[in-house]
């Protein structure tokens, strides 16, 4: 007689390896694929805060965080590019590297490698400067990518892509219908009786009269945080109940309005 095991539905570990990369539309014209945003009208891929070099930054403070973020970032990117081999433009939306000062060894190495990898799959790469990217110019110059200090308006979708740590002082922003930001690393914690787990997510809502999309951070070291528990971006200081969340794990899942989550 086979005894039923309470563990039979339990995953082997908390972090599943297999991913199905079905794009999910989170707003008309904007698709979430894994942790990246794809805009078909402009054929561009947007990645949020990568924070490469995070581990070295902690090492310098005597915290021996193992180096694993970049490996996972590459794995996720390879899976993405296996599905879609080429795009016109890739945007790295701020906080590419972690540290505040001059680029460290790890940052230098990893950012170069990343840009080399990305350039195989895109015609153009633009880095939009985030608040952590203080000394990003040397890297950008070296790898021959474009560095944007404020933000970029996407031609066809009229979306303005910027980091989100400040409201942009840019006419292009004023004309945009949609704003795409990073910076807040949104993640929502779910509880299922016995377990609690935090999942990175996309958020879509409104800010003034524009639609706003918040990207999850594209890194695996920091789990992210619930913006309702203290959002950083000036775009997210109001009530967030009307925002809708899409949680990302092996797929992108629509969880509906925030006001109904917890």
């Amino acid at each position, binding site marked *: 007689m086979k*005894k*039923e*095991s*309470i*563990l039979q*539905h*339990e995953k082997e*570990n*908390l*972090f599943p390896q297999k991913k199905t990369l079905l794009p999910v539309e989170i707003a008309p014209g904007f698709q979430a694929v894994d942790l990246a945003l794809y805009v078909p009208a402009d054929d561009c891929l947007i990645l949020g805060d990568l924070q490469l070099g995070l581990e*070295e930054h*902690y*090492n*310098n*403070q*005597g*915290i*021996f*965080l*193992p*180096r*694993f973020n970049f490996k*996972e970032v590459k794995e996720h990117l390879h899976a993405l590019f296996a599905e879609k081999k080429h795009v016109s433009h890739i945007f790295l939306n701020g906080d590419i590297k972690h540290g505040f000062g001059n680029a460290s060894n*790890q940052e230098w190495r990893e950012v170069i490698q990343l840009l080399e990898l990305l350039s195989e799959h895109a015609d153009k790469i633009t880095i939009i400067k985030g608040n952590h990217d203080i000394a990003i110019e040397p890297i950008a110059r070296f790898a021959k990518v474009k560095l944007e200090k404020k933000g970029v308006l996407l031609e066809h979708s009229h979306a303005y892509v910027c980091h989100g740590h400040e409201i942009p002082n840019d006419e292009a922003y004023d004309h945009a219908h949609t704003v795409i930001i990073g910076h807040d690393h949104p993640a929502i914690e779910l*509880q*299922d*009786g*016995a*377990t*609690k*787990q935090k999942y990175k997510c996309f958020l879509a809502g409104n800010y003034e009269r524009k639609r706003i999309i918040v990207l999850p951070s594209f890194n*695996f*070291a*920091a*789990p992210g*945080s*619930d913006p309702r*528990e*203290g959002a950083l971006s000036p775009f997210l200081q109001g009530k967030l109940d009307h925002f809708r969340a899409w949680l990302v794990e092996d797929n992108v899942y629509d969880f509906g309005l925030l006001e109904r989550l*917890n």
Partner: protein
Amino acid sequence: MITRLTQKFPEKEVYASLHPLLGGYFQHHFKGFTEPQLYSIVSVHRRDNILISAPTGTGKTLSAFAAVLSELMHLSDVGQLEDKVYAVYVSPLRALSNDIEKNLKAPLEEVQKAAAKLGKEYPIRVGVRTGDTPQNERAAMLKKPPHILITTPETLAIMLTAPKFSLAMKETRWIIVDEIHAIASGKRGTMLALSMESLQRLSPAITRIGLSATVAPLDEIANYLVGNETKGSSRPCKVVDVSHIKQMDMKVLSPLPDLINTTQKKMDKAVYELLDDLIGNHRSTLIFTNTRAATERVVHHLKEKFPSKYEGFIGAHHSSLSREHRLHVEDNLKTGKYKVCVSSTSLELGIDIGYIDLVILLGSPKGVARALQRIGRAGHKLHDVVKGRIVVLDRDDLVECGVLLKNAIEKNIDRVHVPKNALDVLAQHIIGMVVNDPRKIEEVYEEVTHAYPYETLSRTDFNAIIDYLSGHYAGLEVRHVYAKVWIDEATGMMGKRGKMARMLYMTNLGTIPDEAKVKVKIGEHVIGTFDEAFMDRLKKGDRFALGGNTMEFQFARGMTVQAKASAGVPTIPSWVSEMLPLSYDLALEIQKFRKLMQEKFRLKKSKKEILTFIDSYLYVDKNAANAIYEYFYQQFRFAEIPHHGSVLLEVVKEEGMTNFVFHTLFGRRVNDALSRAYAYALGRMIHQDVDILLGDNGFALRFGGKASPEKLISLVHSWEFEKILEIALRTSEVLRRRFRHCATRAFMILRTYMGRTKSVGRQQMSSRLLLSAVMRMDENFPILREARREVLEDLMDMTHAKEIITAIEQGMIKVDITHLDTFSPFAFNLIAQGHYDLVKLEDRLSFIKRMHEKVMQHVNETDAQL
């Protein structure tokens, strides 16, 4: 080989073993030797390893030191007293170190006086070295090492790695460990055991002496003291057990004859009147409570109710008070200025507090050994009768303390738990082992496995730690950043990495985790703080009391908690993180008593017969016996008396919630494991949140909706038990917190680095990142495994919990499932826990009374039907 010394040495022989001038001191001052001294002095003289278990005030210090002083005097006589450390004394408390220094200076001064008359002198140096010792003193010690060095476990570890100072310890003859019962049961003791092996390597002929209060099992503590010769075979050690030599006068007192049909006001009044009465009849009293908050409360209320008697004559003593304050209180006790001192656990260890003629325990001390250790603080002089009174506060307390007293009188002491195979402490210590010179890896393994806590350390685990220390979890190009040691497989050698290795080791050494208070905010306002440990059980929606208000937990960011004001009763009592767990052994004894009572009721014995039985079995007075009878009677009429061999699972629906109350009387540590496993299984069954109410006598699972208790029981299998707990704990606060502690001990987080020290908040945030990274990388990472082990074996008691699950599976423990309309009397205290708060004590008792009335109604109805 551990052997009991059952024969004292005749006085003549003891005198013969001592230097005549020292013998003269004993003769003159004490007219002879105390009991422990008659056993130990000759043994120490003969260089036998020895563990002496004796109460305070029985001459323990000199029973260890007499032979040491004697030998130093002989060496001086023949001009061979050199500038090196002959004896090291280690105690867990800096305050104790200062006391011991004084205790040694007294006989030394007397001896010097007598010697001066003969034209001789004995330049024997006693020195204290702790974390407080200023640099100039340390430098002086290097030039002229003390012959007797008094220190703490941490400073000992540092000195052992000091290239110059350690030379002074190459021929140390004795190491004396005081309060060994207290130190062995934590990771500090684990580290000390390893340090003792390092010292033994430096000085192979060393003799080990342990001084202990009442503790069990004595043989295990002896083994801890001396370590192992070879695998599974202890080094030789003699054990002297004179813990019973002081006469004990112990009683259990109930403030009121009826602990349930009363009001909180009447109860309080009775408690304080009783305390006042006891204090008034004695010269000096020491009161032990179980929490710091209770300590403050008792002092406050006594001063308030009887200002003329207590204002200026009473002091509080606990770990949250400043050191100056505590010293002030200790001094006042010693000089007799204070008539009474109230303490939580801080005065358990033997700091000299002068003459105490009564010890009161307010509420159950939760263990026989602890009760005896606390009561043993009374009657500081040898022939005093040790007087202790346990004042009980509710019916469970009454039963618990009744059984406790019986076991104390019959010398049935509950066993202590010594943590085994702590991988984080091992990692730290190995760094210390190679911080000066490289060593053969094989030898390192051999040395650490001599230490008792590592006698079963597997080669696999050892290798895992070596891999961790050599940075194997990092890629080759960056390994140099993560590695603390280098290993050379070809030569089998390992050594330190980096020029800063010794500095890092010294500034980060230690096993005691930094603790800080968590700030509680409503919006931007800080309302108050609580212990970090309180977070272990807190989840969103839980209500807790702070500063007289009830709050609801929203979320936590670092060391700050966001809450909102709430009406309603707290769901988690505020003292929960401080509460001592009922010892497993004592819990089993209470179960035995319950079984006997169940039998008597089942056989329809008369009240008179049962009262006679209680009277003969327990050592309580008539009122107490009567109260116990009534309590059991009500439980029996209502449900069943859960006992050894049967677990009562009562199912009660109340206020729209279903409660599964498990009457598992095994103590909190076991119940913590059981409750989490069952809560996990239940949560999986119903896909909902399950609240856990945890106690010593059982636990309750509370949830909305329905579930089958039979199915729940059948789902928790013994062969998966550990795995279930692992998964249940994966995302828990308690694991996160313990992981931080382990990561810091294993130097994965360096508290002090590049001259900067991290705040606890900083340590906490980085450890969360570290934990999630480690979990992604390797769930079997040794530091993560150690955090789990610490939670499951040291904090909880998974071993016994698993035994219970197995017994349930095999039918040796029956689970009786009963559906009731209201809670049974034995469940009251568990369910009323949230009402247990300091401020809302009114609510608690009125809640219990309300339930009690329902029970009595039912009991009376059933009685009427008979």
